[in-house]
């Protein structure tokens, strides 16, 4: 059906074309070898040993043959190449979990060595990618999102055995976001099934579990939030940012008038959901595509407003609040007048205009805020950026570029603490830092 876009006289490949391709391949391979040698040397120096002989390991084809078949159900324990991870989470600096697409299945993989190696834990999860997931420890995990069912529902699945088996939680119909602090788990739940057309605004409630997701009860008061059931609220339009077991923010981005005008709405609770207060949404109306929020502490909030996106560019604005969302100040912006009706903000240039944040990001896992001054941002189809001045300026993470990350991918960035972090470029590879500055590629 795209024949009219064909080249009427396509060139025929020649020996010269093949030579050019092989030369490119050789350059790619050298870059890989250089990176691997760098890792080996660092490891050798840290162990205080001298390597006097060549080190050789199993070839990728031997190690990952089962995975590479891309067919059938894999056995638990089957090695998974880190180049095929879709998204990762870590509990501490050693134990991690990853979603992986394998053939028709979405599987769960697990690492016990900081992400160096991965093995299948559950070969066929009850959801499809792009699902979202979270683990509160090595045993208890939560899985939700992905494409809604034919009935317009999005379920929450829980595990208490490290992801080997999953049970469906008795909440719904649309589980939009989940956050666990120890056994204390909150879920933001839309009360209407997702509908393609003509859907009304629908109340959003917060359900709470204090036993690792086994039993659930509604939070005390109905939050003053609503969602637009016409859109897939499961992944991008509702976000839960929990600070402590009792304090949390819920951000929704929905049609406020029943028409096409989208706007954010922010609510706050300090008493475990018993009462809710509204907070002002600072985003100008022309940022009409999405918003995402993150917090480093009780009162420190970061809110990114996103415009329509086009050709890899999206106008963005970062607002900061140090009093829990009562007052906001513009920290940085990426102006793209063509996408914001000609309007530009001050503080332009601090944020990268390249790449997309919400609603194109993977869940809300592309913004990691560590402290009131330090954060990482990984816009979809762009590269990873970091700030150390509270978001006023953002620079490319140089250590990642040196470690071989090629811009243009999508994925997520997670930090276990101020120094241990991972960047997963979906379907490309996994990189880790253990000092917050230097990065290394893990696995094949």
């Amino acid at each position, binding site marked *: 059906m*795209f024949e009219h*876009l064909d080249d009427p006289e*396509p060139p025929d490949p020649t020996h010269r*074309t093949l030579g050019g391709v*092989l030369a490119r391949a050789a350059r790619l391979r050298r870059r890989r070898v250089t990176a691997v040698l760098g890792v080996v040397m660092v490891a050798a120096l840290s162990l205080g040993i001298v390597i006097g002989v060549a080190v050789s390991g199993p070839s*990728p*084809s031997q190690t990952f043959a089962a995975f590479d078949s891309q067919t059938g159900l894999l056995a638990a324990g089957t090695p998974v190449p880190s180049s095929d991870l879709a998204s990762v989470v870590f509990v501490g600096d050693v134990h991690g979990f990853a979603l992986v*697409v394998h053939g028709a299945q979405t599987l769960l993989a697990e690492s016990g060595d900081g992400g160096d190696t991965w093995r299948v834990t559950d070969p066929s999860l009850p959801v499809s990618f*792009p699902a979202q997931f979270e683990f509160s420890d090595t045993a208890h995990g939560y899985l939700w999102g992905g494409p809604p069912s034919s009935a317009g529902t999005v379920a929450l699945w829980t595990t208490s055995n490290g992801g080997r088996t999953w049970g469906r939680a008795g909440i719904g119909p649309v589980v939009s976001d989940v956050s666990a602090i120890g056994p204390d788990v909150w879920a933001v739940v839309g009360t209407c099934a997702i509908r393609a057309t003509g859907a009304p605004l629908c109340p959003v409630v917060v359900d709470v579990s204090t036993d690792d997701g086994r039993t659930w009860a509604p939070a005390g008061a109905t939050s003053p939030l609503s969602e637009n059931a016409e859109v897939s609220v499961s992944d991008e339009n509702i976000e839960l940012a929990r600070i402590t077991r009792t304090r949390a923010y819920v951000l929704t981005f929905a049609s406020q008038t029943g028409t096409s005008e989208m706007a954010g709405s922010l609510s706050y609770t300090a008493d475990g959901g018993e009462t809710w207060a509204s907070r002002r949404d600072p985003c100008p109306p022309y940022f009409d595509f999405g918003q995402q929020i993150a917090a480093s502490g009780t009162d420190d909030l970061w809110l990114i407003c996103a415009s329509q996106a086009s*050709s890899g560019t999206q106008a963005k604005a970062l607002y900061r609040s140090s009093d829990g969302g009562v007052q906001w100040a513009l920290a940085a912006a990426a102006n793209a007048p063509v996408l914001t009706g000609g309007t530009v903000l001050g503080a332009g240039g601090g944020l990268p205009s390249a790449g997309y944040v919400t609603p194109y990001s993977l869940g809300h896992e592309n913004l990691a805020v560590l402290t009131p001054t330090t954060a990482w941002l990984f816009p979809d189809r762009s590269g990873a950026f970091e700030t150390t001045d509270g978001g006023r300026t953002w620079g490319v993470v140089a250590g990642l570029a040196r470690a071989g990350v090629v811009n243009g991918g999508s994925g997520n960035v997670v930090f276990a603490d101020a120094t241990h972090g991972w960047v997963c470029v979906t379907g490309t590879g996994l990189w880790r830092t253990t000092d917050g500055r230097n990065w290394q590629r893990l696995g094949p």
Partner: protein
Amino acid sequence: MAEAVRFEDVFADLYRLAYRVSFRVLGDRGDAEDVAQEALARAHVRWARLRDRPHGWVVTVSTNLAIDRLRRRSRATSSGIEPVALVETHLSERIDLARALRRLPRRQREVVVLRYLADWPELEVAGALGCSPGTVKSHASRGLAHLRHDLEERGLGGGDDVRASG
């Protein structure tokens, strides 16, 4: 034991495939050749893992590279840096197609790219992706619906041209 497939033996076939999907997105011969070469170089590096079924991988990577190339080209245009060979009758259609493809969920995009951009039969798409023909049909149908919606939403009437064939 079956003899391993050599990269050189299937190179021409893979190159034509990569060039075709790249050109459909880019509409520029030089860019499409560059993308095809890059995709094939990446395939060569991974050949031990890909050699049993490289075609789907090459189509997917070529499409992604082409979409990225088109995106960078658009950015260069908007910033006043004029790239070569942009005067092309179907350019807006290609840009809209690339944007629409990017917005598809990963699985739908893989199916739509293989089925409609590379013109593969359903059975071959199923074999390449390791799923059933029914799954391919389902993803293709949903993907097309998304494409239609996306192109129509841009008000360019492109959605009418997006329909299943064959």
